[in-house]
């Protein structure tokens, strides 16, 4: 087996074993640091109350991710079509980006009645900008000579966007998606922490807060574990799905299932100035 596969698995296993051993030998009370076995047991026993929270967090994350992707791509496309629009709106996007979520969340919670909607808005605010920036960079990365080709044949801005800019932006869009997936989860949890919401329609962050008030450390760890697993699953999905998608195209030449070159790398802009 390749070291890329077994070395990380081994190091994680060893770390968990060391943690387990430390807790047992040093007799650390579970309200200070629960052993991994106890965390797993808590996930099992508390699953009834944890999974609705997990489901809420997941919906919040995916909802924000979808909205951020839609918003980012649409706005970037609009910017690509209209320079004036870009000049007018980009500053607002940057302002939103540099404003810390925890600082703006209380305001949003005041202005927006529905807590769920407020949380979604907070999460979207964080995830949106990387998507916009990445897509914008991708739209601008289109080959210069291809641009000239489109100019030569009198392409309309819409044709240029559809057939040149958006396809060029695909690899950038995918890396934007990977960034946004992680950010959505983090921002969703952060927003919920700030909101301090209680009740049925709340996520894992609220479970962690509640557990911390009761010093129920194992339960905190259990919720944390679910968050980490969700993050990992999200990352793996966004890493794997695009490759899967690319493979549907006919395999070029030699290697079966290899990606078309434009999918993985951006091409350097060729210099055609004056010759």
């Amino acid at each position, binding site marked *: 087996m390749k070291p890329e596969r077994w070395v990380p698995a081994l190091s994680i296993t060893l770390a968990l074993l060391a943690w387990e051993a430390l807790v047992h030998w040093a007799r650390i009370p579970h309200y200070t640091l629960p052993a991994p076995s106890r965390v797993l047991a808590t996930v099992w026993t508390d699953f009834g109350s944890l999974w609705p929270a997990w489901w809420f967090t997941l919906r919040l994350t995916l909802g924000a991710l979808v909205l951020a992707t839609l918003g980012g791509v649409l706005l970037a496309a609009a910017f690509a079509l209209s320079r004036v629009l870009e000049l007018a709106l980009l500053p607002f996007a940057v302002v939103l980006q540099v404003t810390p979520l925890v600082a703006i969340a209380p305001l949003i919670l005041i202005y927006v009645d529905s807590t769920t909607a407020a949380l979604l808005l907070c999460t979207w605010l964080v995830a949106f900008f990387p998507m916009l920036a990445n897509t914008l960079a991708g739209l601008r990365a289109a*080959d210069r*000579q*291809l641009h*000239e*080709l*489109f*100019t*030569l*044949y*009198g*392409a309309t801005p819409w*044709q240029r966007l559809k*057939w*040149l800019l958006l*396809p060029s932006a*695909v690899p950038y869009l995918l890396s934007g998606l990977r960034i946004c997936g992680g950010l959505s989860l983090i921002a969703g949890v952060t927003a919920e922490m700030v909101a301090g919401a209680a009740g049925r329609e709340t996520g894992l962050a609220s479970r962690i807060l509640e557990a911390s008030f009761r010093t129920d450390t194992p339960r905190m760890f259990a919720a944390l574990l679910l968050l980490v697993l969700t993050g990992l699953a999200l990352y793996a999905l966004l890493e794997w799905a695009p490759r899967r998608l690319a493979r549907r*195209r*006919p395999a*070029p*030449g030699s290697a079966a299932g290899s990606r*078309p*070159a*434009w999918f993985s790398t951006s091409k350097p802009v*060729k210099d*055609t*100035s*004056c*010759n």
Partner: protein
Amino acid sequence: MNDIELSGISHRYPNGVQALADVSLRIAPGEFVSLLGPSGCGKSTLLRLLAGLETPSDGRVPAPGEGGVGFVFQSPTLLPWSTVRDNVALPLRLAGRARGLSSPQRRARADALLQRVGLAGFEDAWPEELSGGMQMRASLARALVTDPTLLLLDEPFAALDELTRQKMGDDLLTLWREQGCTVLFVTHNVFEAVYLSQRVVVMSARPGRVHAEVAIDAPVLRDHAFRRSPAYLEQCVAVSGTLEAAMSGPAAVTT
């Protein structure tokens, strides 16, 4: 059809580089003319002006005729995410309703062009599956798909090996005879210029201007026999001499 007439064309890039100074040139319909010169002589700029990709700072460039302009870049410049057929059909697709061609008609037209450039059977291939020469052929097919009256080629074969380059040259001549379009071919290769053209325009650099024009005395049908003939070699030597003079001495304009 009228001659393409350029007179007193000057062009300065925004960065201050004077690319062309007072260039005058007349090209007859159906003529094959090469622009030959060292790099920096503005031959590519002249081509870009004719294509409408740049506007001259001085002088007027005639508007392209009815069929428009076909342009072949230095690199094949194909869309990597489209099949070879879709790439060739792109100009028709961009023209949209203006040309009044349905999608099957565009396909048929693209396939016919691919057949003519020797790429039959590669319609559904991706550009990156083709060799450099084949990509150039696809690029040539795309430039011809709109039936242009003027075909502009910017050192299209510079990146190809010698044998492929000669084969492409022969095929270009065949296409030109069949199509009957005017061809303006930019190159820095003396042998290529003499072999292909009816007239070679030698340019000198800094600023770019026409140094001399050399009419090539050769049959319209050219083949390997011509490539080995003394007449070909003599004219290559003559054009080489003119090019050297253009690169060193002051302009001695002859027409």
